[in-house]
């Protein structure tokens, strides 16, 4: 069957993810983690993992459950596998937070939280990978952007694998290779997670979502192929090469520098493709989601420049906190929030009005949102993020926390918009729920197939 439908649990993934984003911002505003604490302290580790697993990974998993079927024009392998995955990931994240508290000496118990977290997170990500992998295997055609997603999923395996190694070592594992990898492998874990799983997958999905939402031609360009090959090579050199180098006591800096050169080489053709999609669009007015995605993409370009400049001046190690922060919040969160603005409206529309199409006039997806109101919250969020990144670069802990409060205000404003969309509050009451339609539930989609 060609027609994909609604993924039942995507909205649940999004809801939990947004809660995690708010928690992460509240923690940072309250002074938990870097720069108020050391970058490897328990507080920093908690903030990083609530952001990376709770917010960004759950967002990406939810989005892939809905959009991988669109990318490969094949239905999702299993809707039912999604909720146990969500449960395992959430409980696994809670266990990981408890493990970090134990590691920091704040929680005094003998419960093996690290082991529990490793098992649960492997189970959660494993279920997601199984579901997406089976969907991919059943597809007749795997278009170029999907190869970015496949490379991203492979990077996710490495991220979770390295995380499990660290958890085993921190939980008391004594084997020499475990200790060696844990001592030197944290940059590899971060690169595999933020650069591979989250960034590379987002790049693949962005090709299709931007084309779909702006009515741009599908790319069949050499530049896309170059971006894929160089990007995958960068990840292979950094992560696989990095692991080998660490275990062989080699020069990790050399491998990471080579990977950085390859990564910049991949981002240039990707940037050209993105500019092409914006310029060749057939919708003259760019909707807010695509405009704000443009801001996030500009942040990605700025991030690449920042990394190169810091590397040239030998400051990359010292400024890792600022780099990771800007990658997570300027680029990935910026893109995530921009796309949520559209996807929540799109899914809510399908669920509510899809079943009555052809029987009566229906509102448009655009009628479920008020762009003008959301715009100010997007800018609030971005202004806060830019200022917070500068504060980190200059080591200003208190101004950083104030900037995070601004980011939190922007985020809460946007979450309020998503809730309004889900409740159809921006549609005239008289037209909101015509006969035969029903109010969607907040956190789950009714995936019933049309008659």
């Amino acid at each position, binding site marked *: 069957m060609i027609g994909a*439908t609604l993924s039942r649990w995507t909205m649940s993934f999004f809801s939990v993810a947004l809660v995690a984003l708010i928690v992460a911002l509240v923690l940072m505003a309250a002074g938990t983690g870097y720069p108020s604490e050391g970058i490897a302290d328990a507080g920093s580790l908690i903030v990083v993992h609530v952001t990376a697993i709770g917010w960004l990974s759950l967002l990406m998993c939810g989005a892939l459950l809905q959009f991988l079927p669109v990318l490969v024009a094949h239905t999702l392998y299993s809707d039912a596998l999604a909720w146990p995955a969500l449960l395992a990931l959430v409980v696994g994240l809670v266990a990981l937070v408890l493990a970090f508290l134990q590691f920091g000496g704040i929680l005094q118990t003998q419960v093996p939280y690290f082991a529990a977290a490793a098992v649960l997170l492997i189970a959660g990500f494993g279920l997601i990978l199984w579901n997406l992998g089976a969907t991919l295997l059943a597809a007749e055609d795997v278009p170029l952007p999907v190869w970015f997603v496949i490379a991203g999923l492979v990077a996710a395996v490495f991220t979770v694998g390295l995380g499990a190694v660290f958890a085993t070592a921190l939980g008391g594992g004594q084997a020499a290779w475990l200790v060696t990898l844990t001592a030197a492998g944290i940059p590899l874990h971060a690169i595999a997670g933020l650069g591979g799983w989250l960034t590379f997958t987002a790049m693949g999905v962005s090709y299709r979502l931007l084309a779909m939402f702006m009515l741009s031609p599908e790319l069949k360009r050499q530049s896309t192929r170059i971006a894929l090959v160089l990007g995958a090579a960068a990840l292979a050199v950094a992560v696989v090469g990095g692991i080998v180098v660490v275990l062989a006591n080699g020069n990790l800096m050399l491998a990471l520098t080579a990977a950085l050169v390859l990564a910049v080489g991949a981002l240039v053709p990707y940037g050209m493709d993105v500019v092409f999609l914006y310029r060749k669009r057939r919708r003259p007015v760019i909707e807010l989601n695509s405009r704000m995605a443009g801001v996030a993409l500009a942040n990605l370009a700025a991030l690449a420049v920042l990394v190169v400049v810091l590397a040239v001046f030998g400051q990359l190690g010292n400024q890792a906190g600022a780099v990771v922060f800007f990658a997570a919040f300027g680029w990935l969160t910026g893109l995530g929030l921009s796309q949520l603005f559209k996807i929540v409206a799109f899914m809510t529309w399908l669920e509510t009005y899809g079943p009555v*199409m052809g029987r009566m006039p229906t509102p448009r997806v655009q009628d479920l949102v008020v762009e003008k109101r959301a715009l100010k919250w997007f800018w609030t969020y971005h202004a806060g993020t830019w200022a917070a990144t500068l504060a980190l670069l200059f080591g200003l802990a208190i101004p950083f926390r104030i900037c995070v409060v601004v980011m939190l205000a922007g985020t809460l404003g946007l979450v309020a918009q998503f809730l309004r969309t889900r409740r159809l509050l921006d549609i005239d009451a008289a037209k909101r729920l015509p006969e035969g339609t029903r109010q969607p539930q907040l956190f789950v989609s009714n995936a019933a197939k049309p008659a």
Partner: protein
Amino acid sequence: MFIETQATSDPATLKFLPGRQVLASGSFDASTREAAAQSPLAHRLFGVEGVTRVVLGSDWIGVTQTRGDWAHLKPAVLGAIMEHYLTGAGALEAPGDAETPKDRFSAVGDPNESATMTQVREAIRQVIDPELGFNILDLGLIYDVSFDGEGGAKVLMTTTTPGCPATNYLMSGAREAALSADGIETAEVELTHDPRWGPEMMTSIAKAHFGIPEGEGW
């Protein structure tokens, strides 16, 4: 579809080359709308205000107009030619055409179509592509509508992108629309992505809405 234009010695006349055969043999010349009745293409061109003569050749269409300025008229003529070819009809009605012309589907409508076809078409116009916020008829997502003469309707349609999450709802909407017409008891909807949809398949109405110049696709 790309339509080339060529100037002629008469500034009031332009030649349009649609890049495909127009007439298999001979030529066709009409100076009034009535005289153009034999040719659905010429008939449609006379629908453009200002057109006074249409000549069809082997691979070209000559259009003469009296308004003087081609700048405003050319897009409309290009749009009419494009719309004609989208209907799949020939430039001339073949004598003794087995198909009943009045039930031939056209997104922009045909003055001679049956009441049922009009009803189905207008009902489909109620179905919107949720993402583009425009009806699927003018977007060019409906490739064909046909009737079996026994209360059965068949709709051949596509989506802007394969795997579109709205596919099932759009198909169901088209089916409901067909069933809403008088005398239609069963409706079947078939999905195809051959040919793949492109903006050139939009009607002039949709193109104007999205600001896409006539004659342009991707």
